[in-house]
């Protein structure tokens, strides 16, 4: 079989169209470079793919999906095409004794199509963890290095929030926050009483018209995709300006297989499988940006073996695949009788929380290192399948009393989601499975995972805190967790929070890291990795905003190198 190559050599080829790939495409094309972007999935067509404003009864399955398989979980029928826990024909493996789940996306825009839009800056101390508490490693750059790029990204995409001067949660450039919902009002009151910080959240949703996009219309359905592009997604906010430059080529259905190295040790092309024809094709470029998501990027590098780089690309240090981190997650919830008194009213708001709890115990010694923030929500949302499972089990019976109980309890629940920092450990990594390939013939990943005590202590603190807040608000905490078993204190399995990072980390030294502070490989000068793989630590801040800021910074560096003729 003959390998087909596109006749053109692009300035830059980007692999992946999510938060990172989209940002790189915009900055590089606007900076004058020609860019080809490879996306493993299909194009996104909002007017076809989005189910914004659809009622459950307008779908035959009411949102439960075929066979009711989506009664619970992330794959309900309403969500924007985004990704899945299992992709047919593209398996991954967990090593014996390890549980790890991997949510992957195969569509233009990647996981930004329905992410939580939570846009938090890392704090200065988050870049200096080893200096601060002796664990993990410092980043090769500081908050001050990244801050101008946080400014740029926030200014461009639009993030609401409020100035608070909290050391653990730096302020940004914010649009005004929306007013609190009833659920948020009562939690805020309880938190004030307990001296726990509760402030307006910071989400990439427009509370005012911004850069040509309409303001939010408060339907609470960001996860379904927004036809007015009033929230941020790479597909609607990053890719279109790149397209407008005329220097952008989007290649969909393209599953990157290997980066091809020339004799002089530079990358000359990427080999990919064209899914439609199952043919092997190549794109040639002067520089490559790998932004396929942390674990896919590590997989691509590890699968790119050559005589020059027998252990995979950018891997002379051996760190590729190592230092895999997710976020520490433990959830809980309660019943709040005070909410029964609320008259029927529109509770929708934006598609996410209007308030949240940043890490507040940064000024004292705790049972564990680092910190967590808390997301919370509930109340009178649009009813959906699976919402009544717990109530049915608790109330039992049938008839008028069951019906009335459902009405009485509607909108009276609030759930909390703790999201904390995991410290990387040697038991958490991914590697190429020695035997399995996917349907495209590409060797797949095998995951190893084990939480350490610090994470479990953090999960315990989350549970205690949510009980305390619930009770302070006059509620009844309903979550019961065990200190032992496979998920102590309710800690989620690895990967479940979908914040996997760290697998191609940056650092000052080529012996202990794969990339420099500009996301450029120490070993291969025309190779950049810009997604969450670059992270040295995984602060309690959701990674997306930092991924975009680091990508913007790396892209400007690349533009500068191109101007100097160094590509």
């Amino acid at each position, binding site marked *: 079989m003959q390998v087909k190559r596109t006749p053109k050599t692009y300035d830059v080829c980007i692999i992946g169209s999510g938060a990172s790939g989209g940002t790189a495409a915009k900055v590089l094309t606007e900076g004058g470079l020609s860019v080809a972007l490879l996306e493993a999935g299909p194009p996104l067509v*909002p*007017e*076809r793919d989005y189910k914004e*404003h*659809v*009622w*459950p*009864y*307008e779908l035959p*399955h*009411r*949102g*439960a999906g075929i*066979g*009711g*398989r989506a*009664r619970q979980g992330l794959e309900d029928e309403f969500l924007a095409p985004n990704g899945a826990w299992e992709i047919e024909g593209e398996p991954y493996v967990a090593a014996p004794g390890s549980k790890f789940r991997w949510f992957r996306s195969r569509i233009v825009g990647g996981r930004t199509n329905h992410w939580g839009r939570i846009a938090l800056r890392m704090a200065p101390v988050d870049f200096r963890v080893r200096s601060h508490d002796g664990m993990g490693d410092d980043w090769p750059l500081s908050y001050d290095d990244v801050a101008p790029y946080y400014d740029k990204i926030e200014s461009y995409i639009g993030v609401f929030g409020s100035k608070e001067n909290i050391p653990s949660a730096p302020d940004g450039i914010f649009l005004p926050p929306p*007013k*609190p*919902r*009833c659920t948020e009002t009562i939690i805020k009151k309880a938190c004030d009483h307990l001296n726990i910080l509760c402030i307006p959240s910071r989400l990439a949703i427009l509370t005012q018209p911004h*850069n*040509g996009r*309409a*303001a939010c*219309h*408060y*339907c*609470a*359905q960001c996860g379904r995709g927004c*036809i*007015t*592009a009033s929230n941020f997604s790479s597909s*609607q*906010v990053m890719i*279109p*300006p790149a397209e*407008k430059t005329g220097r952008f080529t989007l290649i969909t259905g393209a599953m990157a297989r290997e980066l091809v190295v020339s004799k002089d040790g530079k990358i000359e092309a990427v080999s990919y499988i064209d899914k439609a024809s199952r043919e092997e094709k190549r794109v040639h470029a002067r520089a490559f940006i790998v932004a396929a998501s942390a674990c896919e990027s590590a997989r691509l590098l590890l699968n790119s073996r050559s005589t020059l780089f027998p252990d995979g690309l950018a891997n002379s240090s051996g760190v590729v695949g190592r230092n895999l981190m997710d976020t520490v997650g433990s959830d809980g919830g309660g019943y709040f009788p005070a909410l029964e008194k*609320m008259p*029927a*009213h*529109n*509770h*929708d708001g934006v598609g996410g929380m209007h308030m949240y709890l940043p890490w507040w115990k940064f000024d004292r010694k705790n049972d564990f290192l680092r910190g967590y923030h808390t997301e919370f929500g509930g109340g*009178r*949302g649009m*009813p959906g*399948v699976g919402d*009544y499972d717990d*109530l*049915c089990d608790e109330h039992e*019976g*049938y*008839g*008028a009393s*069951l*019906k009335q109980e*459902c*009405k009485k309890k*509607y909108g009276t629940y609030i759930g909390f989601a703790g999201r904390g920092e995991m410290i990387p450990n040697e038991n958490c990594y991914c590697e190429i499975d020695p035997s399995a390939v996917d349907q495209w013939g590409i060797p797949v990943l095998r995951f190893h995972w084990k939480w350490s005590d610090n994470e479990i202590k953090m999960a315990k603190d989350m549970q205690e805190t949510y009980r305390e807040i619930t009770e302070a608000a006059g509620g009844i905490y309903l979550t019961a967790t065990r200190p032992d078993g496979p998920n102590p204190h309710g800690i989620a399995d690895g990967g479940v929070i979908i914040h996997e990072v760290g697998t191609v980390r940056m650092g000052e030294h080529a012996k202990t890291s794969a990339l420099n502070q500009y996301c450029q490989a120490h070993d291969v000068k025309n190779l950049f990795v810009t997604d969450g793989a670059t992270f040295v630590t995984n602060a309690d801040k959701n990674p997306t905003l930092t991924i975009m800021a680091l990508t913007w910074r790396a892209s400007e560096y690349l533009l500068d190198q191109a101007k100097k003729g160094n590509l």
Partner: protein
Amino acid sequence: MPISRRDILKSLTLTAITGSVLRVIPLEAAEYAHRMVRAERAAAVNQIYAPKFFSAHFYKTLQSLCQTIIPSDDQAKGAMEAGAPEFIDLITSENKEYQVALGGGLMWLDNTCIDRYGSAYLDCTPQQQKEILDLIAYRKNAKQDPSLGQGIEFFGFLRKLTADGFFTSEIGIEYLGYIGNTFVKEFPGCPPVPEA
């Protein structure tokens, strides 16, 4: 030929692209398009449903059970009017586990009624129907009579699916008092809490 919602959405998108770098649809136009989607779907809903999995007898039993679990009252109609049996039949037709749990569960109910009362559930007197349902509607009853275990499991599952079917219907959503899924210029926040 009447203009379809796809045509409208397509034309909206094209206009939007020429006017802006971004694929943005003006709010009012989007709202109009959404209303069309809704009308289209509503029209499709009004057809008579032919069960895909349950036989006529068991579908009637299912309807009766759904309506007993969430009955009609002076505030709102019940689970049957809300389309819960259709919803349950549809997803059961696509799910082998549900077919065993619900198909088998309904047969268990008939068998048990025949053993106890001499006739299938639908042919029992209202008093007999109440008696058997009161037994399988509570987990604690299995402690006294372990032979109820399968019935309790079945009824617990059917109760959840009936609640799903009812509370995701137009009737159920109105009954709960959910207000939203709409376009508002500004979010009003939490209304004042009425004094007790």
